[in-house]
């Protein structure tokens, strides 16, 4: 059952990602990407990362995609301008690069799959991974004990990003 659900989510994620990068209309691209975010959230649930799944929907499908849609509608793109792909030579080069990367990554994963199968068997027999470790309480425990410094530095990063966005888009710096 889990495998079937995983394959369904994986098929939806791959198909919507391919459609998202090949649409002429940027709004359609963004909406297909929202579907990919939801499919990945379903995959996170199957991997028992419930808090990450909820955050995925809230932050990506909620906040980041709304920001994207606002900007896409703000810059008022003509569809013939969007239809322009790269020059054919560079486009073939890019597709070749990504295909090569895919080949290398698949090779690495398939050569190390015994490790993952063994780890999954260990988990099935009862428990390297605690049941609560993917919940908000489990993540929060790690976040506020071991990684509290990184958590605080993240707030500085968000503040600088916010200031940068405001300053870059202001017409007058008074």
């Amino acid at each position, binding site marked *: 059952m889990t495998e079937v659900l995983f394959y369904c989510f994986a098929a939806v994620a791959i198909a919507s990602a391919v459609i998202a990068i090949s649409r002429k209309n940027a709004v359609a691209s963004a909406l297909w990407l929202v579907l990919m975010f939801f499919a*990945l959230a379903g995959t996170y649930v199957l991997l028992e990362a419930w808090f990450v799944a909820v955050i995925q929907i809230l932050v990506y499908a909620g906040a980041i995609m709304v920001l994207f849609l606002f900007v896409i509608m*703000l810059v008022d793109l003509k569809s013939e301008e969007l239809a322009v792909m790269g020059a054919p030579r560079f486009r073939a080069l890019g597709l070749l690069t990504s295909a090569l990367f895919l080949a290398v990554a698949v090779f690495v994963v398939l050569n190390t799959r015994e490790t993952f199968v063994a780890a999954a068997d260990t988990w099935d027999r009862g428990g390297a991974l605690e049941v609560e470790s993917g919940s908000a309480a489990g993540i929060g425990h790690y976040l506020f004990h071991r990684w509290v410094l990184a958590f605080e530095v993240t707030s500085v990063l968000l503040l600088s990003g916010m200031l940068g966005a405001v300053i870059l888009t202001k017409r007058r710096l008074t």
Partner: protein
Amino acid sequence: MSALLDSVLATAVPLDRALLLAAVLFSIGLAGVTSRRNVLIMLLSVEIMLNAANLALVTFSKVHGDPTGQVFVFFAMTVAAAEVAVGLAIVIAVYRLRRTTDVGEVAALHEIDYGPVRYPQLEGQPVHHHGSSGNGDGDGDAGETGGQPAVASEEAHG
């Protein structure tokens, strides 16, 4: 509902398949970045690549039985949010200057004649400033463009 979820999660996800899914998604994002010319679509493709990395992190967290990978996903999402905010601000600024989002047309850092360009003005620069105290006529703030000198003129007037 919880019993249903428990029965669904009774069997494990094939973890190597999850890593393969992450690799495929990353390649799709890479193809989008390298083959499209619109900078908005390129940013969307970068988001696909970040999501593929997040999926790999969650899978490794499951493999090792350590929630640190999920904490890293949390940080990666924060960095992605900041990156998208700054990147889209740059897109807006470039679009305001050049009226395009095609990366082939904004490849030059030097100035090409694209018509009138409005640069941001700092507060201390005397651009249109012609002395708020000596500005004696009634509607003197008609010539002022900034907010700050207009307020000073009104205060001097009243």
